[in-house]
């Protein structure tokens, strides 16, 4: 391995701070602040599995569990939760995201490709504790007010779940 530079360390810290902040905002239901982490044209994808080893890749031809071509889809989710009228989201489960193995895979100072592993531990009164996890692949872009999320691709390991899934628990 080549020698680690201060610039690399600073970039890594900056990346982690954003990703950890997203988890913190979700777990604390600070959805308006959470939405601010995303660029307006941010893509958000969570594909379904096609078989034991293959994930769907084309959201317009194959099944995705969640796919938003822009941030408007995230805004719909927050709106729905805030109606307090969703049977599944009132009361909401308690959750804790845990993120690790953060690796910068490519890009430059202004456009960064990042991968990391995640688990969510959640507790709902009716169901008790549940855990699930997978990988996040992000593309982060630098704008006037720092790094923001341009793309989030969620690999969800299960193809069978016994709890509702929404932006707050994946």
């Amino acid at each position, binding site marked *: 391995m080549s020698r680690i530079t201060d610039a690399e360390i600073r970039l890594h810290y900056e990346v982690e701070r954003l990703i950890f902040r997203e988890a913190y905002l979700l777990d604390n239901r600070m959805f308006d602040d959470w939405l601010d982490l995303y660029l307006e044209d941010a893509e958000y994808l*969570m*594909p*379904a*599995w*096609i*078989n*034991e080893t293959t994930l*769907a890749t084309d*959201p*317009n*031809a*194959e*099944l*995705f*569990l*969640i*796919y938003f071509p822009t941030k*408007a889809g995230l805004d*719909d*989710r927050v*709106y*729905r939760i805030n*109606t307090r*009228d*969703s*049977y*599944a*989201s009132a009361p909401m489960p308690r959750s804790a995201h845990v993120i690790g193995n953060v690796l910068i895979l490519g890009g430059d100072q202004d456009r960064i490709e990042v991968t990391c592993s995640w688990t969510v531990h959640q507790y709902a009164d*009716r*169901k008790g504790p549940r855990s699930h996890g997978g990988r996040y692949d992000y593309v982060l872009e630098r704008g006037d007010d720092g790094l923001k999320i341009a793309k989030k691709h969620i690999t969800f390991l299960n*193809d*069978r*779940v*016994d709890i*509702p*899934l*929404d932006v707050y628990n*994946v």
Partner: protein
Amino acid sequence: MPDASGPAQSDEFAQMVDDRASEGQFRIDRRMYDDEAVFEAEMERIFEATWMYVAHESQIPNAGDYIWTEVGRQPVIINRLDDGSVSGVINACSHRGALLTANRQGNARVLVCRYHGWTFKSSGECIRIKDEAAGFPNGVDKSCYNLTAVPRVESYKGFIFACLNPDAPTLTEHLAETLPFIDMLADQSPDGMEVLPGSAAYVVDCNWKLQVENGVDGYHVGVVHRNFAQTVRRRNEINGASGMKLTENARFDPGAVETACYDLGNGHNIIWSDRGAPEAAPLYEAKDKVLPEVGQEKWDWMVGRGRNLLLYPNLFLMDQSSTQIRIIRPLSASSTEVRVYCIAPKGESVQARTARLNKFRDFFLTSGLATPDDSVALEDTQAGVGGRLAKWSPFERGQATEIKGPDAHARLLNINPVASNTPWDLETIFVGQYRRWAELMTVRT
């Protein structure tokens, strides 16, 4: 009186349906939702005795293609043979019983057991016994070790059903009055229909019968899915959506559009509602291709009416804002798996395919804007079923307006429901479900 604290006895099952419709009473004993003895009997007498949907032909197009699934509690392989026909075997090696497939879906012209290496043609014929000469020095008739065939496998317009009871009526006799409604989905493209890649499954901690009720329950739509309607209405306004990008939602407003429900016999049901904006349906673009094939009357049904079709007891064919195959698989008395696929007309435009998948994700997934709310409502219902002192669930709404036989719309289609009712949220259809349940659960001697 039966003892309410112990497991139900076999001769009590039919009494759990208190059918006195002529006196205005039809109710069911809620023990049928969580009693393990009832569940075991249902597996034998319903799921392993009548026709179960197993797969769509587009999922196994080529010789050797297979799907491993379950019929009742039993693992089965449904596969395409060399002659193009669809067949099925119990997914258990004739030697020790190990599963013969590593994957849920794949292609295998021969099935090789991964435990001791015995080998079978996909038809089930045993063609290799490892170290045959050492084990059987005097020779052996390998046909004694063929796989066990699934007694009945039949397909209707691409929808494959299996039945473990060799004496069951034919598939089309079983489906009977549902056939015109299956056609309304199956005939949406002259090139046929295809299941799109990828599926999702969710487990709901409720009895399978609650899932079966829910899929044709028009009554909850305006309550449980009120927030769905509110969310998509807001989105439609923000986007100024039109055409296929619009999510049509007239059915969420009671009385806004015409609706009805039919008890189609054999436990099968349909509920339908006119679409407020037929041009929002992804099928709308196919008018020139499909209308000449099916005629005006049927086309109007296909594009103008959202339909939830239950093929009792394990399949829903949903044609609402999007098109869904929903398979119900009971896991225990209080747990049910639901596996869902998007089915679409072959050859539709990219725009229609995109709109179809968008609307599918919105409504039909447990990661969407509607299905999670159904799941949790059903789990709450299951929890309430534990309240033994509150014994009965009534299915009595709509008795005064029920029509024996077809209503005017059904008559135009030449179909003969057992009973019809309007609006779609009346409980006529559940009477059909539970009469069928009682019929199947009664052991004939």
